[in-house]
């Protein structure tokens, strides 16, 4: 158990550092085995260094930095071991326009091998959609769904 997981962690750490560095255009990220007297109960620690800043504890990160760090972590697992499809629900809410652009750029690359279902309010994310569905409630409390064009999506997304 432990041997196999240690090997996987080595690969995941490499993938996480590479994905983080691409998405943040610099900086470093690491996944480390926790020091624990019982190796079977040891968990995984995360260390990050934002470009140009010092290494610091996770709770000093800003809202947007935390969100993008989590996105880099999830995307690095998907790059390592793709799943048939991935569903994400408004994970882009805290990102500013520049970080939204980095997120959508990386998402487009991953979508060459993994199908994505993306729920979003952000215009930048809607624009990279290959297939767009709108959900409305013409009668309060009852949802309806229909396929729409990017143009219509802009009005509906709100």
């Amino acid at each position, binding site marked *: 158990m432990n041997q196999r997981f240690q090997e996987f962690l080595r690969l995941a750490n490499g993938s996480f550092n590479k994905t983080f560095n691409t998405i943040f255009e610099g900086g470093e990220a690491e996944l480390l085995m926790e020091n624990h007297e019982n190796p079977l109960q040891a968990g995984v620690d995360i260390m990050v260094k934002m470009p140009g800043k010092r290494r610091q504890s996770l709770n000093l990160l800003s809202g947007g930095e935390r969100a993008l760090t989590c996105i880099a972590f*999830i995307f690095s*697992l998907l790059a*390592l071991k793709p799943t048939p499809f*991935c569903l994400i*629900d408004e994970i882009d809410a805290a990102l500013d326009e520049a970080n939204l652009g980095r997120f959508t750029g990386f998402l487009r690359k991953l979508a060459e091998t993994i199908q994505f279902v993306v729920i979003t309010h952000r215009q930048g994310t809607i624009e990279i*959609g290959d297939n767009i569905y709108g959900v409305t409630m013409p009668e309060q409390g009852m*949802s309806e769904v229909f396929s729409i064009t990017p143009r219509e999506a802009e009005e509906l997304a709100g």
Partner: protein
Amino acid sequence: MYLKHLEMKGFKSFAKGIEIDFRPGINVIVGPNGCGKSNIADAIRWVLGEANVRNLRGQRGEDVIFTGTDKKKPLGMAWVSMTVDNQDRVISNDYSEISVARRIYRNGESEFLLNMNQVRLKDIHSLFAGTGLGKRGYSIIGQGELEQVLDAKPFERRLLMEEAA
């Protein structure tokens, strides 16, 4: 393998029957607050065998059945059917297309169907085992769940990664 088609009726705010065709690549779902977007995510988790209704924002199993509005009465049943393309035989069986369905009645009774044959919850789990499908924090990130990997304790983080190992 990819998600091809989703049909549902009576699941949460989807009182009327609806159908969605998905394509490979990026499928985007948009709409105003409270219109039912996250309910679609819940429907996909549910049909993939989500056993804990708290992960679907409910308290009892039947909470996923349409409870009615000012003008419409509650329904007695909810069902969701999902079809995945299996031409690349990610799941090694004879089918080039696999459809999974789930139904629940007001009395709490629920049933699963695999290509129209009744199966158990365990069969759904073993069908998709190893594909990562339906796993929280890896192939499904629900609204508000993004930062769980940072907030989790180191050991929980390890369990999350075991899904992808």
